[in-house]
């Protein structure tokens, strides 16, 4: 339990460093703001419309598939660490697990869910 203390201290020191740097820069920085400077940067052109446009559905799909395969990766960690004691059964179990998810992966490829330039 004691070896986690340095990690916590590192987190606190890291946040402290970032906070101090941002805080100091708040005071030192000259402030001469004007409407022109405050407008969002559009390569010098007059900004048009709000910046909050609709975002494509593909980013949503990437995030979903990331979660599901991340769960698969997380299941692989304890298996990999305890593999020497699990032996053949461990191997067969994991092959089954990965095979089922491979079916999902093939379905994903077949449905072209992640093709960026296909007009969906």
């Amino acid at each position, binding site marked *: 339990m004691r070896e986690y*203390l340095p990690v916590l201290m590192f987190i606190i020191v890291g946040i402290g*460093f970032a906070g101090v740097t941002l805080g*100091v820069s708040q005071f030192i920085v000259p402030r001469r703001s004007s409407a022109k400077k*405050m*407008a969002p940067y559009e390569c010098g052109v007059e900004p048009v419309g709000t*910046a909050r*446009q609709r975002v494509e559905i593909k980013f949503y799909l990437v995030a979903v598939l990331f979660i599901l*395969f991340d769960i698969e*990766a997380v299941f692989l960690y304890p298996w990999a660490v305890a593999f020497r004691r699990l032996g053949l059964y461990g191997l067969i179990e994991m092959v089954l697990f990965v095979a089922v998810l491979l079916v999902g992966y093939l379905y994903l490829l077949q449905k072209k869910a992640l093709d*960026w330039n296909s007009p969906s």
Partner: protein
Amino acid sequence: MKRLLADALQKYHVWAAEHPDPTFAIWAFIKIFIILNVTLVVVSYLVWAERKICGRMQGRFGPNRVGWFGLLQPWADVVKLFFKEEFVPGSANKVLYSIAPALAIVPALISFSIVPFGPGLHVTDLNVGLLLFLAMSSIGVYAVTLGGWASNNKYALIGGLRSSAQMISYELAMGISTIGVLLLAGSLSMVDIVKAQEHTWFVAFQPVAFLMFMITAFAETNRTPFDLPEAESELVAGFHTEYSSMKFGLFFLGEYSNVITICSIAVTLFLGGWNGPWLPQSLKFLWFFAKLAVLVFVFVWARWTLPRFRYDQLMDLGWKVLLPVSIANVMLTAVVVYMRVPR
């Protein structure tokens, strides 16, 4: 004078023997303080080195005005960044806008707590060490997403989304490519992994995993050839379009310290950490820093030679090549380890 020093040391040993916990905490704090400062200096000189090497590659000198061989250039940059004016876009979400840079640098620094620089030289040795690194790199995605969204700018929003989609796709392949190493080492703790590489480095057993780890390392730090979302020709400056002065400085610092973090993890996992032939036990950490320097040079070298990927090529490579290959590699390693382990 020497006698004074001797009994001071003696008193310290007595005090340390009585209550171990506070001494452990003080030593940890000293190590952390040293690592934080050394990292910041090394990162700023990595920026200098990159500009020098890039200059040499393009047949010019690179920074040599400020100080001898431009060695004071990083300090000049830091002072400049502190004093530049700050433009916070009008309707930006102030709080998230200023949290994003902190989220870029803090996870990169925290991953240093588990890196074993030398035989005894590590801040802490967790028995879930590698997972802390993966957890911190998955927290790093928020810096990009929030940076893009909070700065209320069209380019920043799209750039931020594209970079975070790229980072999460490659983070997956990175996680799975490290599993081959776990199969061989049998433990998640970084010190055990390095000890397991006493005779042969894991890059010999896992060349494919090492190659994939390096590819995902490039993508994870948003560096060429995977830096399309923030490429100059593409989306102005991607997610840090609206950032200026020290906030941009923190993003910049975060990116470079991420490069060093990922390279030191790659050295620990695949290139045998501090193991090396000739040096005595006490000087082994020189091996670690030599390998780290080689890997960081590869990063800098790739930036000025390789062309940039198009976004769909980049995503296809992540999902359709790296993911299946890394899973196949894990399965293959498992079969080989099962065969070779003596019954």
